[in-house]
């Protein structure tokens, strides 16, 4: 670039305009993350807030030998894998259906997206009522002759996680749909015209045109679903509180449990692991999918 052009760029777009955002974000978001690297190496406790003592990697040693922590890691991964897959697949199916010339297209889009605007408190408490002992779900099972399946789904150790997963999928599938619809709108209709002249079948057009050109939408959905899944807090905290037993405890809720016991050093170490875990996996997923995007185009 010529120097004069660079000077124009600098006067026209002064870098100083980035500063306000950088300050707010840097102070309230990045600074605490940096602090976490230091404080996770201390025996920091709420009762001795200003006197943390350096203890090296003791917190991490403790955590990795804590079966409850390892279980919450496992639960987090189960939650993230199931919700990310279901939300992406169902969101895609809905988007493909609602991209067609249906009479109720707009109404249906509105309805399917609606859960995404509701607070998780609303969704969570609603789900508790639905899956409770005399809730709608059991009534439905009863009415189709499956009485023997009736139970308190939230309080049952083997089904509580499924309820939490259902709540999350219920809430976010419409959002995935909206991203896919946005992607579908960006596909040039001429591709389909050309393919039709060549006599391509609908299935072939989906495989050879639609899905490859939807790659950017896939990237956004999958990356956000993975991040949201690994960070999960509200869903679990509101619906099960981590129970029954420890069957739905995830990383974020276990961090909160330790925090409310005043164990700041240990919970900082845990949330640092969560940070590395989420940052690492979402970067990897993003890298893989972006590479695929390039390969296709």
């Amino acid at each position, binding site marked *: *670039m010529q120097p004069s052009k*660079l000077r*124009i*760029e600098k*006067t*026209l*777009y*002064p*870098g100083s*305009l*980035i500063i*306000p*955002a950088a300050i*707010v*974000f840097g102070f*309230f*978001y990045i600074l*605490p*993350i940096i*602090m*976490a690297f230091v404080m996770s190496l201390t025996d920091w406790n709420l009762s001795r807030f200003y006197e943390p003592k350096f203890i090296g990697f003791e917190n991490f040693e403790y955590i990795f030998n804590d079966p409850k922590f390892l279980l919450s890691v496992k639960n987090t991964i189960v939650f993230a894998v199931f919700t990310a897959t279901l939300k992406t697949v169902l969101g895609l199916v809905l988007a493909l*259906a609602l991209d*067609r010339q*249906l*009479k*109720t297209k707009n109404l*249906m889009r*509105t*309805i*399917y997206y609606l*859960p995404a605007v*509701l*607070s*998780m408190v*609303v969704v969570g*408490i*609603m789900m508790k009522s*639905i899956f409770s002992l*005399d809730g*709608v779900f059991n009534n439905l099972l009863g009415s189709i002759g499956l009485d023997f399946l009736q139970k308190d789904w939230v309080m049952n150790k083997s089904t509580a996680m499924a309820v939490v997963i259902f709540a999350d999928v*219920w809430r976010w599938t*419409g959002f995935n749909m909206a*991203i896919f619809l*946005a*992607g579908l709108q960006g596909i040039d209709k001429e591709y389909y015209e050309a393919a039709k002249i060549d006599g391509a079948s609908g299935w072939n057009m989906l495989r050879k045109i639609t899905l490859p050109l939807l790659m*950017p939408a896939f990237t956004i959905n999958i990356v956000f679903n993975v991040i949201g899944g690994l960070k999960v807090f*509200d869903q679990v*905290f*509101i619906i099960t509180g981590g129970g029954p037993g420890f069957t739905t405890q995830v990383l*974020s809720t276990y*961090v909160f449990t330790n*925090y409310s016991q005043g164990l*700041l050093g240990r*919970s*900082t170490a845990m*949330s*640092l692991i969560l940070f590395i875990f*989420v*940052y690492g996996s*979402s970067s990897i997923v993003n890298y893989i999918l972006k590479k695929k995007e390039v390969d296709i185009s």
Partner: protein
Amino acid sequence: MSTDSKNTTVKLTSMEKQRKRTDLIIEIIVIFFSLIIIVPILIMVFGSFKDSTEAAKFNILPPKEWHFENYVYVITVGNIGRALINSLVVTFFSVLFCMVPASLAGFIIARRTTKISSRSQTLFMIGLYAPMNMITTFALLRVTGLLGSYFAVIMVLAASQIPYAVYMVSNFVRNVPRELDQAALIDGCSSLRMFFTIITPVMKPILVTTTVLVTMNSWNDFMVPLYFFNTSSRWTLPLTVYNFYGQYFRDWNLVFANLVITALPITILYLYAQKHIVSGLTSGAVKG
């Protein structure tokens, strides 16, 4: 010749018929499955007008008698008025402190070709991928004496959403021609004035979408107020409702009324702004 074209027409109309039939089947399936969304919401809305015993049956029938007094009771006993004001204050200012800095930064990042652009983009991307650290944020707020204040919750919510807003805005601006800015410079505008008089109107679609999405996130957020508001008088609606549920979990009519009050403002905003959401997602997220 004439039979030939006739044949094509017949073939086309049969294809057309086939497509219409497929569409009809798909339509029926889509409508059927929308019940999974509609039924829970109906149970909640109808339930909020029932008496306690009727609401606990959790059916989709409308109430036998409409008990509007449920809402009066919830608002007076559940401290909803206060929570509503708290939610409005927290949401409004967190959106303001997110959107103004983020749209400036997003614009510059999209326009500058120098290192400052790529470096700050990398910085903001961290926030897009990584969760915030609640424990050390708590400590930071306590040390600075901000813990428990509106300001703290507002700024944490703003900071956590700045990356999304920067991402959306910068993706959008990359598709806006630069000639517009240069014309402003020739007219002798300062860059800030250019931004607010010429660029902002062009960015309106993405600003509307992003503002709506950020508003929804702030309004619905549960974790930040839970960690950083220690007094219940400052609690926002989701937290107040969660607490109310803990005390009144046997009175589903009251709980449902409480949920409806929480969901209503944001649902109205959504119905009003929904056409901007998909178009904004197209230009801000998917195209980038």
